[in-house]
């Protein structure tokens, strides 16, 4: 059993939780994730490790309430317990010196982006962050990201904050201005990652994306999380979740993420959430 030590409401649908899980905290690295199960009847869902405190033995997750499990999780409070919390899973990000990096987070993708921003900055990179969301309310971790960035840009689809438009527009502008970019990382909705990869492809800028397929075990046993990368089948839970953005088959990922849409809706309806 894993205790919820802290809970913060980031926005209407986004919550942060610190969970006591000393073994996970001890090993966690930026770019990795955990899988949790709330109770006996619960589903196993993956969430990125947004932060960790090795001394206190806690792991921070930030999640958007999109369906049955994440909504249920959002109703839990400090002192409540999760039945299962396993990790750290997946390969950590390559924290290297690239020179200038552009870090793009969309929506809930900002959460997993944040620790990578922090560590790339600590490595001595010049960090340009671009955060985007549908509207101001869905933006998060702005201050935290800003603290570790040399430049910060914000876009919203409706212009309620920052530039009206998409994160990819800002990226295109930076490229057009002739900025020398060593690496671009994009985490967010699949369609956003696809667009970002399309922007950087003609310029051959190294582009990493973090994929979020449906998972079950997280140990490479089921293959439910398989994604097609450069025409090879990879298991995102052990080979990823980060991959070369220019090689990912995004359309297949979008398709596979819709596998259980009807069932997910049914589940929510029955639970009244």
């Amino acid at each position, binding site marked *: 059993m894993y205790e919820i030590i802290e809970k913060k409401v980031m926005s209407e649908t986004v919550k942060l939780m610190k969970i006591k899980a000393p*073994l*996970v905290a001890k*090993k966690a690295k930026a770019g990795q994730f955990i899988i949790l*199960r709330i109770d006996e*009847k*619960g*589903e*196993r869902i993956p969430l990125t490790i947004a932060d960790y405190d090795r001394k206190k033995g806690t792991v921070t997750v930030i999640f958007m309430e999109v369906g*049955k*499990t994440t909504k249920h999780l959002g109703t839990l409070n400090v002192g409540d317990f999760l*039945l*299962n*919390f*396993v*990790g*750290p*899973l997946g390969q950590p990000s390559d924290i290297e010196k690239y020179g200038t990096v552009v870090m793009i987070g969309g929506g809930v993708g900002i959460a997993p982006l944040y620790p990578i921003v922090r560590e790339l900055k600590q490595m001595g990179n010049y960090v340009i962050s671009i955060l985007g969301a549908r509207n101001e309310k869905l933006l998060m971790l702005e201050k935290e990201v800003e603290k570790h960035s040399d430049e910060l840009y914000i876009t919203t689809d409706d212009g309620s904050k920052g530039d009206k438009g998409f994160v990819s527009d800002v990226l295109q502008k930076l490229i057009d201005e002739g900025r020398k970019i060593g690496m671009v990382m994009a985490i967010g909705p699949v369609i956003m990652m696809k667009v970002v990869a399309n922007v950087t492809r003609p310029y051959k800028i190294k582009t990493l994306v973090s994929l979020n397929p449906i998972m*079950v*075990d*997280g*140990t*490479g*046993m*089921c*293959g*439910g999380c*398989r*994604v*097609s990368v450069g025409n090879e*089948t990879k298991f995102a839970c*052990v080979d990823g979740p980060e991959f070369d953005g220019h090689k990912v*088959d995004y*359309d*297949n990922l979008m*398709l*596979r993420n*819709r*596998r*259980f849409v*009807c*069932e*997910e809706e*049914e*589940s929510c309806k*029955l*639970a009244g959430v």
Partner: protein
Amino acid sequence: MAVRKTKYEMAEQSAKERIKNFNEVPYGYNEKTAIEEAKRCLQCKNRPCVDGCPVEIDIPEFIKHIAEGDIDKAVEILKTKTNLPAVCGRVCPYESQCEGECTLKKIGEPVGIGRLERFLADYERKKGVKIPKKAKPTDKKVAVVGAGPAGLTCAGDLAKMGHSVTVFEALHDPGGVLMYGIPEFRLPKEIVKAEVDYIKKLGVEIKYDIVVGKTITVDELMKDYDAVFIGTGAGLPRWLRIPGENLDGVYSANEYLTRVNMMRAYDFPNYDTPVKIGKIVATFGAGNVAMDCARTSLRLGAEKSYIIYRRSDVEMPARDEEIEHAKEEGVIFHLLTNPVKFTGDDKGILKEVECIKMKLGEPDESGRRRPIPIEGSNFKIQIDTALVAIGQSPNPLVPKTVKGLKIGKWGNIETDEDGRTNIPEIFAGGDIATGAATVILAMGAGKRAARAIDKYLKLKK
């Protein structure tokens, strides 16, 4: 009196009834029938059945005690060689092991050794399991990685020898394939739990949610433990490697069975994990895993459940009983048929599989006749779901993260007969060493490794 030529029947749920539920198919012998069946045994001096048993259970001896009505003694004899009799009594391929060697086969059916084993285990469970005496506690600690049959057996035996044992399991339930792979109707999860409880009562501690190689490494375990046993199984699904395999509707057998068994998707939405199969399901392969997939699909409401297999019926690797049960339940077999391509609709949802007819050629390395495609024989089958059950390879996670550990060409951990690896403190056994095999072989490997570990610990001092 002449010996009865056939086994006494074991009552079972009718095929029509059972495809509507997940309850176990056979009911098992009652005491009276068990005694009658035991009386069929000839008590052969040369004991061929024992030679056929991978863990050398003293078969004639336990059968003799059943025949004499001393069931408790029979249980005791059985349990000196197996920690998981209720499991083995249900899933062992007896026909190619003990029963395959039985002298009675010369005149008819062998003694129902598997049925008798199952009877004993169920008898004992109902009565309350006796915890055997343990050796005096030693000051040695052993870490076991993976709570499948290999790991659990090794852990139980080491505990009996007085060592302190901790099992590290990646998933949230113990049992390995017994829990996430083999379905409820063949191996009720209550039985797996009872067998695991027995191992816990021997003093074994099981820690869940620990992916060794990620949460903690074997090298780290070696700092706190005197020896490590690796029993992480063959969990890596193999693929057909044909176009369309990543479409919505194509599952690995592992994903499908894990969703249904471990996550209980058959009870969705009471349980949160979904599974979706549509009306027509095709399972590729013809081993136990494939039969489990095909039969599970019927129970989840599939109108048609196909087995598609590239060789013929004699080469099907599944246990006879599984194939029989599958046929009785209405699974349709497309033999000498190989898939070449999956196609989806405009949304990318699986809609059909293209297959090619095969014929058998000369025997290959496995001794089975090689299937050869018949050119121009391609045809299409409409399907909603495809389940790929063509085998599993050793899970690379642990082997890849242990420095200097010798790995074989299939990604398996190389060991000697007794589970020793090239690193003195590290032992391994079960599917991770042999590639996908059987429960009893995994158990046998766990037992031999426990003895080798005990020897190693005594010398280590």
